[in-house]
């Protein structure tokens, strides 16, 4: 079996706050193969963004890793020093964020912002051989703008973020992230807040470029439907646990974790009626509690037994359709 | 313990500097209130025999040219200085915040008018303005308070205007209009309490500045006049003796003045932390 590009093993993280310790992530397993597009789906509070920030070493100051490894190739990202991480960011692993306007420097032309990344990772020098050989920084920046389907890239090089629409700013952010051809892109809710048609265009762009370059993508979202349309595999998170991981088709054909099933049934789609929507009962448990049940979905689950509360269910990453549940749903739908 | 008290306690304990600032501030307030009773000597009693004596056990801060105890004079001056500063700041705050709220909320001519007023005021150096007011209205403490209040007006106007601008189109303001609020009520009930935190920080910084203003004006003879003890006057009285070696006449009042301004500035940081909702978990 080939080594996965990113292999997160047994990862746990907590936040020390004034009102207690928030056990934000617990024993999370996640694997991304080279060139694979993985969707990380969960609601707010599930820990999906926290996980990706921790990978890149940009967590909040109050965050503390309490266990596990994050193997990127042969290196454990969690043990790297800041300098090595800084070299890695942008060059091997890139990230794009939710609000493009706040991620761009408002007083710097977008073309220069792309060049900044190129310059930081000395890519112009690297580009002496290969397809971009001979191109200066400016040409490479214009090329990057062209690749994200921005019309008239030579002129847009000098544009400021405020002169561009939300969708265009998002494209610029993608151009910056992909300028150095990273092998892994983490996209944190890149289309939330965008119109439906713009959303589709941006997702087409990201996945198109990913396929073209064999770039792996971790696509973080709360929109299960969106993940279904674009991802090869989906990992579902709930309250800091990875509860299910499966290829997209298999997941939708037969979700095995009760939470996944409920998530699907509470999302309106073409065929549903109001009455058919089944929301997830209860609320997210408070992650500061000391008496959290072993399976954090216990208090919201109708299949709960004592085992669920005492013994943590484990998601075994070797299974193709993995689930962390003592009483997973079987073939037929239904809770 | 209420959440607010818990939060305040946390802010104070998080940064030792904040605790120091709070303690100093409390100290000055106490001295202002109890000054006359704390003073070991009558601040106005002169005794030429003990003139210009250096600091000693009987006179901790030494004595001045007329034999008056500098410690007593400095302690008693606290009340006047703080009084001038507080009055000026309160006046500034009330007028400045109101003008800024109106400018930020109504825009248009209100905005233009208020900004022009603030610009005009900012163009005047304090001393020129104070001298102008004194020349026109007379050399009294009240007019010094007025001059200091006017000079500080633009700060409050700008803070209020900026914060109001940001919040003017917030959802809850629109919702307030839907709930039947008139413009005036929105300004008073919805906007004002929400812009208070940043304005409070401004208040603390201004207090330090206002104390300096009052001392500076007294130094050049405007407003408070001898023999009334006031820090600026005390420093002025001692200025001529520095060269001849009687350093303590200016030094101690000056040091206390500096400490007061310092503690108010530090307090500004603490106030900001206390009022900043993002600092709460």
């Amino acid at each position: 079996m080939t080594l996965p590009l990113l292999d997160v093993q047994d990862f746990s993280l907590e936040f020390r706050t004034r009102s207690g310790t928030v056990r934000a992530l617990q024993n999370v397993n996640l694997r991304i193969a080279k060139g694979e597009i993985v969707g990380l789906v969960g609601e707010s509070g599930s820990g999906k963004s926290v996980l990706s920030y921790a990978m890149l070493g940009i967590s909040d100051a109050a965050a503390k890793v309490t266990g596990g490894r994050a193997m990127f190739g042969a290196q454990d990202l969690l043990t790297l020093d800041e300098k090595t991480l800084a070299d890695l960011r942008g060059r091997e692993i890139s990230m794009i964020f939710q609000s493009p306007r706040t991620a761009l420097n408002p007083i710097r032309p977008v073309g220069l912002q792309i060049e900044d990344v190129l310059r930081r990772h000395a890519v112009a020098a690297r580009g002496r051989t290969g397809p971009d050989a001979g191109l200066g920084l400016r040409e490479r920046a214009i090329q990057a703008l062209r690749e994200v389907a921005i019309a008239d890239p030579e002129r847009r090089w000098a544009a400021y973020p405020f002169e561009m629409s939300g969708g265009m700013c998002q494209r610029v952010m993608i151009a910056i992230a992909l300028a150095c051809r990273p092998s892994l892109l983490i996209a944190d809710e890149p289309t939330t807040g965008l119109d439906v048609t713009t959303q589709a265009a941006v997702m087409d762009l990201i996945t198109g470029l990913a396929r073209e370059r064999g770039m792996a993508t971790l696509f973080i979202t709360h929109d299960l439907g969106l993940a279904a349309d674009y991802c090869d595999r989906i990992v579902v998170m709930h309250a800091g646990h990875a509860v299910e991981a499966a290829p997209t088709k298999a997941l939708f054909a037969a979700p095995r974790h009760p939470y996944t099933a409920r998530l699907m049934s509470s999302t309106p789609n073409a065929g549903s009626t109001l009455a058919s929507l089944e929301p997830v009962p209860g609320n997210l448990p408070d992650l500061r509690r000391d008496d959290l049940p072993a399976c954090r979905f216990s208090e919201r689950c109708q299949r709960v037994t004592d085992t669920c509360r005492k013994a943590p269910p484990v998601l075994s990453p070797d299974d193709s359709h993995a689930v962390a549940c003592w009483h997973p749903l079987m073939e037929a739908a239904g809770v | 313990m209420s959440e607010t008290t818990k939060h305040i306690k946390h802010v104070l304990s998080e940064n030792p500097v904040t605790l120091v600032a709070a303690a100093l501030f409390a100290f000055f307030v106490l001295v202002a209130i109890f000054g006359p009773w704390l003073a070991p000597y009558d601040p106005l009693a002169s005794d030429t025999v003990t003139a210009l004596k250096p600091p000693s056990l009987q006179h901790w801060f030494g004595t001045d040219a007329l034999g008056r105890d500098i410690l007593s004079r400095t302690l008693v001056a606290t009340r006047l200085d703080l009084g001038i500063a507080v009055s000026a700041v309160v006046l500034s705050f009330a007028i400045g915040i109101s003008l800024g709220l109106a400018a930020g909320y109504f825009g248009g001519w209100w905005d233009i008018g208020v900004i022009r007023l603030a610009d005009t005021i900012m163009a005047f150096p304090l001393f020129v303005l104070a001298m102008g007011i004194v020349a026109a209205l007379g050399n009294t403490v009240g007019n010094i308070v007025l001059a200091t209040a006017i000079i500080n007006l633009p700060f409050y106007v700008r803070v209020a205007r900026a914060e109001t601008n940001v919040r003017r189109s917030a959802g809850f303001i629109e919702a307030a209009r839907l709930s039947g609020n008139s413009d005036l009520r929105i300004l008073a009930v919805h906007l004002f309490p929400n812009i208070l935190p940043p304005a409070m920080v401004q208040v603390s910084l201004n207090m330090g500045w206002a104390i300096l203003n009052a001392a500076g004006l007294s130094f050049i003879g405007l407003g408070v006049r001898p023999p009334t003890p006031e820090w600026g006057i005390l420093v002025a009285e001692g200025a001529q003796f520095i060269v001849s070696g009687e350093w303590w006449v200016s030094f101690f009042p000056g040091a206390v003045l500096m400490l007061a301004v310092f503690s108010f500035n530090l307090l500004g940081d603490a106030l900001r932390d206390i009022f900043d909702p993002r600092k709460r978990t």
Partner: protein
Amino acid sequence: MSEQALLRVERLSKRYPVTGKRGALLHAVADVSLHIGAGESLGLVGESGCGKSTLVRLLARLIDATEGRILFDGQDLAAVPAQRFARTPQRGAIQMVFQDPTDSLNPRFTARDTIREPCLLLAGMDAQAANRRVDEVAEQVGLPLALLSRFPHQLSGGQKARVGIARALAPRPRLLILDEPTAALDVSVQAVVLQLLDRLRRELKLATLFVSHDLNVVRLLTDRVAVMYLGKIVEMGPSSAVFSEPAHPYTQALVSAIPGHGPRIRLDGEVQSPIDPPPQVCRFASRCPVVHDRCRREAPALQGPAEQVAACHFAAWPVKAAA
């Protein structure tokens, strides 16, 4: 069409002067006409820049229109300036639920303060009556009474949304405008709130205007829907019909972009500027996949054989999806 429609909007327009360009006007809302009957639910969909937020604020009387009439129970509300509308008796009859529950609650008011305010100001109740009304309406929206003394930052997203709904219902409105009420909520909470809104609408026989960019959600909660593009209504009709068989090319593209709806119709070309648009050109012409010459010479009016109408000369033509 019902003569006794609760809300009848006639040729409503809003134009803003453009700073920097003398005489230029931004047409945010152009010539919009629609109606909502008592107890009826109309959806309003469109993407950013289509003018639905402006239209909503015109109808809620937060801003003044440039032209047109807003007839509520026969009375033209547009005649009263927005500045003074807060004090008219109709203020309590039209209420709104906002998009972002966090932004739309005063951070220094408890939930009870927030819900009580319209009772005191609009319904003229005294403190006791107002408190009783707060309890009553909190129960209606499923908000536990214990939460009423909390501040917004102590409430979850779903709870804040309920406070916003309770506030809007407190003065017993007859028309409720819902401006993307579930956009900021998690999917599981969204389902609960949608079911709540539907139940309230039926129980209280409220007329509602439901604005959303999420077409799936709009389809579930509305009887009819209007689609807006660049300030104009381009299609209107029964919700099920408009979504299953959209007649206007823009609606077709919109529906096709929903995840899971099959091949996407791509819209290429630049969006026309809303500043001084030439009146004889269809506003969608610059991006329309089936544009013809006629579209640039004669702007189409809303027309259609039955209840479903579309502003397009070639409405019946199916559009080929991008392969």
